[in-house]
């Protein structure tokens, strides 16, 4: 397999875009990535596009061809990837694998989604299409519901009083909003930067024990990246960011995973696969962009990826280990909570943040001496899990 590198990245401002279509959002992100890639349009051989619920939010499916045509790539193979919230991470991983295998030299990848504009009821139902469509949705299980179930089970299993766990969960929201508030591309840029734990605890209850501020927002947005074989990338750009390892895993419904929902076994498998491919361990990772769709989700993720022991992730947050000046900065771009979560665009937006950090271009909230970063994207109730390790060092 060949080494693969990222040439360029782009993302729209995350937030509310009632005046931009799924195509508009993707095209905007794509051209930002294209402009910094030093290639011509005709060099791009295929498009890997992630979108989750275009049918429900925009009445639009079969999206990949429209995306390719919009950006001037009529006729190239264009494929839509759907893995719920991990859609564009799946697209990125498949794109990287195709280049690594030598099938393509340069490809475009990205995603777009419009959940904010769709409104809360449609948005909540659209997101709920990622739970088991027969046995879970019938009870009205929502996405906040999935992680609320996990939060209560976490408290019970690790014998932490629920109120104590809620405070530590709130610290995730405080941290991620602090970083989101200084990221100009974030949905909450300039907002909620000085949130207090009490504000999170006392905000509106969504699905007990998760309040509104335990949840990431509904978001519209687009993201894109252009990747190439490493040898080609080194001739094109000053600082190629190498795709060192990727991993992916799957699972069925929550009820099939039982008590493992707080151990996120598919994430453990995906992360181990990525570490193995990168010939690295968690100690080699300088910072992570993690799928904090809910506060408890970030805590569970840091444990399953191997950064902390099971049941200890909450204390890492409390003790500042996951802050930007801690041992393992988590979500310095604000994460899904502070930056926003345009589902199908989220995974590649995490790649965007990691690439910008590694190039030293993340001016607002730089991680000191960052050479290797990792993304973590969760689709559904652990049904699709993708991890990507990126580094300025070629293997």
């Amino acid at each position: 397999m060949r080494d693969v590198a990222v040439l360029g990245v782009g993302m729209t401002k995350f937030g509310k875009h009632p005046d931009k279509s799924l195509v508009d959002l993707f095209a905007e992100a794509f051209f930002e990535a294209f402009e910094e890639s030093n290639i011509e349009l005709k060099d791009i051989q295929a498009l890997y596009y992630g979108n989750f619920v275009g049918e429900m939010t925009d009445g639009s499916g079969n999206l990949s061809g429209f995306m390719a045509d919009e950006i001037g790539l009529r006729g190239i193979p264009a494929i839509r990837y759907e893995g719920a919230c991990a859609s564009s991470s799946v697209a990125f991983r498949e794109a990287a694998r195709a280049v690594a295998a030598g099938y393509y030299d340069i490809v475009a990848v990205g995603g777009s989604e419009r959940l904010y504009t769709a409104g809360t009821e449609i948005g909540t139902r659209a997101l709920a299409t990622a739970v088991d469509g027969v046995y879970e949705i019938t009870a009205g299980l929502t996405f906040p519901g999935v992680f609320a179930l996990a939060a209560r089970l976490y408290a019970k299993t690790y014998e932490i009083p629920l109120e104590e766990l809620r405070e530590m969960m709130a610290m995730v929201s405080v941290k991620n909003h602090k970083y989101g508030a200084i990221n100009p591309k974030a949905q909450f840029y300039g907002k909620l930067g000085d949130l207090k734990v009490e504000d999170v605890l006392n905000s509106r209850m969504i699905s007990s024990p998760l309040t509104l501020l335990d949840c990431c927002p509904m978001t519209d947005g687009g993201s894109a990246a252009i990747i190439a074989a490493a040898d080609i990338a080194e001739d094109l750009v000053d600082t190629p960011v190498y795709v060192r390892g990727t991993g992916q895993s799957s699972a069925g419904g929550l009820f099939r995973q039982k008590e493992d929902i707080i151990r996120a076994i598919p994430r453990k498998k995906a992360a181990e696969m990525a570490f193995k491919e990168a010939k690295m361990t968690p100690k080699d990772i300088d910072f992570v962009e993690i799928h904090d769709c809910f506060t408890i989700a970030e805590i569970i993720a840091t444990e399953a990826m191997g950064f902390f022991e099971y049941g200890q992730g909450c204390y890492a947050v409390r003790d500042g280990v996951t802050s930007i000046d801690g041992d393992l900065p988590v979500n310095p771009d604000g994460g899904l909570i502070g930056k926003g979560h345009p589902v199908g665009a989220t995974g590649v937006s995490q790649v965007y943040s990691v690439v910008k950090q590694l190039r030293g271009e993340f001016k607002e909230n730089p991680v000191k001496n960052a050479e290797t970063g990792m993304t973590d994207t969760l689709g559904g109730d652990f049904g699709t899990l993708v991890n990507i390790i990126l580094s300025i060092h070629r293997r």
Partner: protein
Amino acid sequence: MRFVDFFNALLEGKVIGQKCLDCGSYTCPPKATCDNCASRNLEAVELSGKGVIRTFTTTYVAPSGYTEEAPYTVAMVELDEGPWIVGRIDLPNEEIERLGQDLIGARVSVYGKEFPTEPFYPDKKRRVVPMFKVEGLR
């Protein structure tokens, strides 16, 4: 076993699952393969319909199609035979808020309740929800 068989039985007060003739474990709701060993050597059986609450959440913001029913409390129950199922606790919301985490571990019996279906639900005639009746409450 078809998904409707599970829900039809539930409306008759029965929880049906599958016993694996290879490893002896139980799968519920039904699946094409044993949830433990992936064997297809399965036999439909009636389960006890009893179990314990392992976790739960009261949903205040419901999806389109479910808003009339909110707030409602979704729970995962571990059946005595081992499988976990998703359903709702049939207590009033105030009672659930009062009990909080103490509901975890409470014994329940399972029955089915019919609700109106919604455009995206696979059964276009009706939607059946497994309901959990908490035992031993005054």
